[in-house]
C-alpha cells in the first residue's frame, strides 16, 4: 500500500505575506470561549457562590432558583459552585494528561523515527497493538491498577493517548527526513542527532500542536466517560464528568444536574474544536484561503 503521505502541516509553511488584520472567526470564538472558561476556572480559586463541598442535607435536589442559580445536587451542594471548581479540575486533568502523552509520545516517536530499522519496527508493532486497544478500556484498566485519584486519571489517559502521539511524531519525522533542508543539514556535516534535535524536532511541533488540541478535547471526554463507567475523579472533588455521571440517577426528576455540566463540557469541546481548526488553518498552508 503506498498511500501518499499527506503533506505536513506547517513544514512547508508558506509565508503569510499578507498578514490578516483580524484573526478568523473560529479563532475568535474558540479563543474567546476558552479564555472565558479558563477565567471561570481561575475564578474558582478565589470565589464561589457557596462552598462547593459543603453538604446541606436539608436542601437536596432543589431546582434552579434565585438562591441556587443552577440548583442543588443530591447532597444539597450548590451546582453552580461545583461547576466552577469543576472547571479547574477538569481542565487541569485534561491539560496534564495531554502533556504526559505529548512528552512520552514525542520521545518514543523520535526514537523510532531516528533509529529506524528493527527498533522502529518493534516499537511500531507495540504501538499499533496499543492503538488497536480501545483507549477507554486501557484507561479503565490502568485506573483500576493505580487507583482512582486525579493523578491516576492523568496517568491512565496519558498512557492511553501516547500511541497516537507516537504515530504522528514518527510520521512527521519520517516525512521530514526526506525534505531537502534535512538533507542540507547532513550535507553541512551535522550529525544525525544534531539534525534530529535542531531541525526535525522543532518542525514536528506544528502537527503536534494540532494533535494536542484535539487530544485535549478527547481527554475531557474520556474523563467524563471514566466517571460514567464508575472510575472517575474521587469526590468530594468535582469534575464536570463526575457531576454528569452522578446526575444520571436523577435524570427524570432533577434534569438540571446533568444538563449544566453537559453544556459546559460541550462548550469547552466546541471551543477546543474551533480553536483547533483555526490552529490547523494557520499551520497548514493548504487550508488557507
Amino acid at each position: 500500500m503506498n498511500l501518499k503521505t499527506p503533506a505536513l502541516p506547517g513544514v512547508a509553511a508558506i509565508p503569510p505575506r499578507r498578514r490578516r488584520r483580524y484573526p478568523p472567526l473560529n479563532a475568535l470564538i474558540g479563543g474567546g470561549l476558552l479564555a472565558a472558561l479558563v477565567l471561570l476556572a481561575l475564578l474558582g480559586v478565589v470565589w464561589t457562590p457557596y462552598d462547593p463541598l459543603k453538604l446541606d442535607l436539608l436542601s437536596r435536589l432543589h431546582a434552579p432558583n434565585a438562591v441556587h442559580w443552577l440548583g442543588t445536587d443530591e447532597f444539597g451542594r450548590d451546582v453552580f459552585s461545583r461547576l466552577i471548581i469543576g472547571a479547574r479540575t477538569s481542565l487541569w486533568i485534561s491539560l496534564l494528561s495531554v502533556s504526559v502523552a505529548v512528552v512520552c509520545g514525542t520521545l518514543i516517536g523520535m526514537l523510532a523515527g531516528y533509529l529506524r530499522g528493527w527498533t522502529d519496527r518493534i516499537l511500531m508493532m507495540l504501538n499499533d497493538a496499543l492503538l488497536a486497544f480501545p483507549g477507554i478500556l486501557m484507561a479503565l484498566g490502568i485506573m483500576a491498577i493505580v487507583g482512582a485519584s486525579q493523578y491516576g486519571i492523568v496517568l491512565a489517559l496519558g498512557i492511553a493517548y501516547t500511541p497516537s502521539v507516537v504515530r504522528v511524531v514518527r510520521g512527521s519525522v519520517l516525512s521530514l527526513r526526506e525534505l531537502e533542508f534535512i538533507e542540507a543539514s547532513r550535507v553541512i556535516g551535522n550529525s544525525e542527532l544534531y539534525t534530529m534535535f535542531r531541525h526535525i524536532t522543532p518542525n514536528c511541533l506544528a502537527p503536534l500542536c494540532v494533535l494536542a488540541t484535539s487530544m485535549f478535547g478527547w481527554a475531557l471526554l474520556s474523563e467524563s466517560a471514566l466517571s460514567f463507567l464508575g472510575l472517575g475523579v474521587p469526590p468530594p472533588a468535582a469534575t464536570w464528568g463526575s457531576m454528569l455521571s452522578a446526575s444520571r440517577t436523577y435524570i427524570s426528576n432533577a434534569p438540571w444536574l446533568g444538563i449544566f455540566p453537559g453544556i459546559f463540557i460541550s462548550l469547552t469541546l466546541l471551543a477546543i474544536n474551533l480553536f483547533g481548526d483555526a490552529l490547523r488553518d494557520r499551520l497548514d498552508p493548504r487550508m488557507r484561503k
Partner: protein
Amino acid sequence: MFRFISHRLGMAVPTLLLISVIVFALIRLIPGDPALLMLGDMADPQSLADMRSSLGLDHSVVTQYLIWIKSVLSGDLGVSISSRQPVLDLLVERFSVSATVVLVAVLLATLLAVPVGLLAAWKQNSAMDLGLVGTATLLLSVPSFWLGLLLLYVFGIQLGWLPVIGYVGFGSDPMKALTYVVLPIVTLTLVEFGAIARMARASTIEVLRLEYIAHARAKGLSEGAVLWKHALRNAFAPTWTLIGLILGNLLGGIAVLETVFTLPGIGRLMVDAIFSRDYPVLQGCLLLITCIYVLVNLLVDLLYPLFDPRVKL
C-alpha cells in the same frame, strides 16, 4: 492482492500475540481476583483457595498464559468465570448487538454527512457553509453519552415513545428490536455526522481546488455534475479512511453509550469483565476487538482503490 492480504494478516499475528500478553498481564495487575469478587465479604481463606484452584488461578501467570493460548489455538476461548457461558457464545451475542448499532449509525452518518460536506465545500464561506460547519462542529462537541441521556430523557421519559432500557434481538421481534436501538443509533449518527461532514467538507475543498475540476468545468459540465461525478469520488477517499478509523474505534467499544442505553454490547461486556475480573471474557473480547480492528483496516485499504485508483495494493 493476495500477497497484500497475506502480508497484512501476517503482520497481525505478532500484534495479536502482543495484545494477548499485554491484556493477560494488565488484568492480573489489577488488585482483587475473580474468586474474591465472587465470595465478597464471605471469603474465608479455605473457600478462597478452593475457588481459586477451581478457576485454575493457582498456577503461575506464565503457566496460565500458556494454558490459555494453547486452548485459544485449538479454537476454545474458555468459559466466563462469572456467567459460566462459553466466551465465544458471549462474544458473538454481544458483538452482534454493538456491531448492528455501530454499522447502521456510521452508514447513516455517512449518507447524511457526505452530501452535506460536499454542499458546504461547494458554497465555501457562504452563510450556508457557516451554518452547516457550525452544526457539524457543535455535534462533534457534544459528548455522546450526554446527548444519549438527553434523548433518553425526552423520548423515553418525557414523551414515552421509546423504551428506556433493554434490548430484544432482531431475530425474535424485529419491530420491537428497532425501538430499542433507535436512540443509540440516532445518538451515534449525530455525533459521527459531525466528524464525517467536517472531513468531507475539508477534502472536497482540497479537491475543488485541483485542476481537473477546472478541466471538468472547462468541458461545460454543470456544477452538479462537477460535484457529483468529479469531486465526490476523490473527496471521498480521505473520508473513507476516516470512516475506517471510526469503525475500528467504535467496534472496539461504545461502552459508555451501551451503559446509557443498557445495550448488552461488547463494550459493556468488557467493562463488566474488568470489574468482575472475568479474565477469559476480557481476554476473548480484546482478541476479538483486535481482530476486528485489523480486519476493518484491511477492508478499508482493500476498498480504497475504488476511490483512488492510484493506490496500488
